[in-house]
């Protein structure tokens, strides 16, 4: 080993007789130029990457609009059976933006969940809580049945068979001038307690509500 390594070397470029970035500096010119050109490249890349990335992931944080949609007069809906109605979830894309919602009048004998002015009519989504296929209300069986993977729900939308992880989602309802209006969706756990809306396949019992957090794009 030469004594080159054991000797203490000055950190100052002037002491080592090599060109520095400027007088009295520890950074050599070569290192200064390397860092400088890499930083310039980084700034140039970030100037198009960051806006593009923000643009791409922006919809995740966009809040969904809050709307009310009239579905029919109050006397159209009995309190012991569902009437299918069609609402527009996403305007502007034709049939693909529409969804069936099953509506009936609240019945104090069977509806044991919290009653308030938003739930005078029960509106249940046709979106299966398993993976989002369309469920169908089968009158004779008094069950909601999903054709895709065999999910079965009872009159209150609670799971009674198949793979779904929580009851069917519901919509807030209100009555304006004798007409029933349907508002935003909300999810319920197996006790029919309300939660902000979730996607299908996201359980809400136990730690489910923390594993699948509420998101701005769904919250209304």
């Amino acid at each position, binding site marked *: 080993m030469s004594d080159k390594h054991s000797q203490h070397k000055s950190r100052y470029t002037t002491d080592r007789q090599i060109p520095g970035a400027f007088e009295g500096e520890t950074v050599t010119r070569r290192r200064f130029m390397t860092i400088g050109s890499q930083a310039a490249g980084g700034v140039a890349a970030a100037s198009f990457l960051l806006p593009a990335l923000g643009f791409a992931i922006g919809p995740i944080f966009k809040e*969904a609009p809050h709307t009310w949609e009239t579905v029919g007069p109050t006397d159209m809906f009995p309190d012991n059976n569902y009437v299918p109605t069609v609402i527009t979830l*996403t305007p502007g*894309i034709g049939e*693909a933006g529409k969804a069936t919602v099953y509506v009936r009048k609240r019945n104090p004998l069977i509806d044991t969940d919290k009653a308030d002015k938003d739930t005078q009519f029960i509106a249940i989504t046709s979106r299966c809580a398993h993976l989002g296929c369309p469920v169908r209300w089968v009158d004779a069986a008094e069950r909601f049945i999903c054709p*895709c993977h065999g999910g079965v729900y009872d009159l209150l939308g609670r799971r009674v068979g198949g793979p779904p992880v929580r009851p069917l989602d519901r919509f807030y309802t209100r009555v304006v001038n004798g007409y029933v209006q349907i508002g935003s969706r909300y999810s319920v756990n197996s006790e029919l307690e309300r939660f902000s809306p979730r996607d299908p396949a996201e359980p809400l019992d136990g730690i489910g509500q923390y*594993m699948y957090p509420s998101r701005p794009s769904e919250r209304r």
Partner: protein
Amino acid sequence: MPKLPPPPLPSALKAPPPRPGDPGSKLGPADHAKEAGASVVDWVDERTSISGAARWMMFRKVPRGTNWFYTLGSATMFAFLNQAVTGVFLAMFYRPDPSGGAYESIRHVTNEVFLGQFVRGMHKWGSSVMVILVFLHMARTFFFGAYKYPRELNWVIGVVLLILTMLMSFSGYLLPFDQRAYWATIVGVNINGTGPLIGPYLSDFLRGGGEFGATTLSRFYAIHMLLVPGLLAALIGAHLYLVAKLGTTAPPWIKAEKNPELRESDA
């Protein structure tokens, strides 16, 4: 008949070499035409040295025992090229319009465009062929032990290619925008959402919002024809580079020949 080179002459007797712009050239147009291909290649090679790279890529040594199983990778690549070419031409007809235009444009291609049904069929069935070939190629690599040192990185790149191929299948499935496409995508996005914590956000990213919306179809179309194919092509390049650099493995039933000197020392 090979022509013998002329005998060497003293330089004083030689004709002077032709000067640029000298009309006295003895080559006719037929000779020029004959040489055109070679001279174009020469022109490019002189400026790029690409022939060395091409030779390095194509004229490789392969181990003894190389068999038809080793063609599965190339077969997969040709399936990808088939998807790329047919996809480009299908894109000339496709409209990512969720309010009916997408379905109508596919119907138009299938029923009215010359060879449209055939080319769309090549793209549709080719995608299944590609997935099957990817898995056969992967199985070959696994059972021949070709993923082992020093080829681990190529296995990892291959797995990423497999995932990207799946993503291509998934995003392409929505594009016909019929009932099956729509509901399969709803189900697929919701399966994706079952990943804890980030799953729901990924679903939002795929849909472009909380609901299947006006831009979901164009999002899938952009992912299907711009984002993933670019990544696929780049990673196929890296995959091939590593194959050429590291060489292929012999099948496991080929025993390595021992060096005779080593054999003596074994005894």
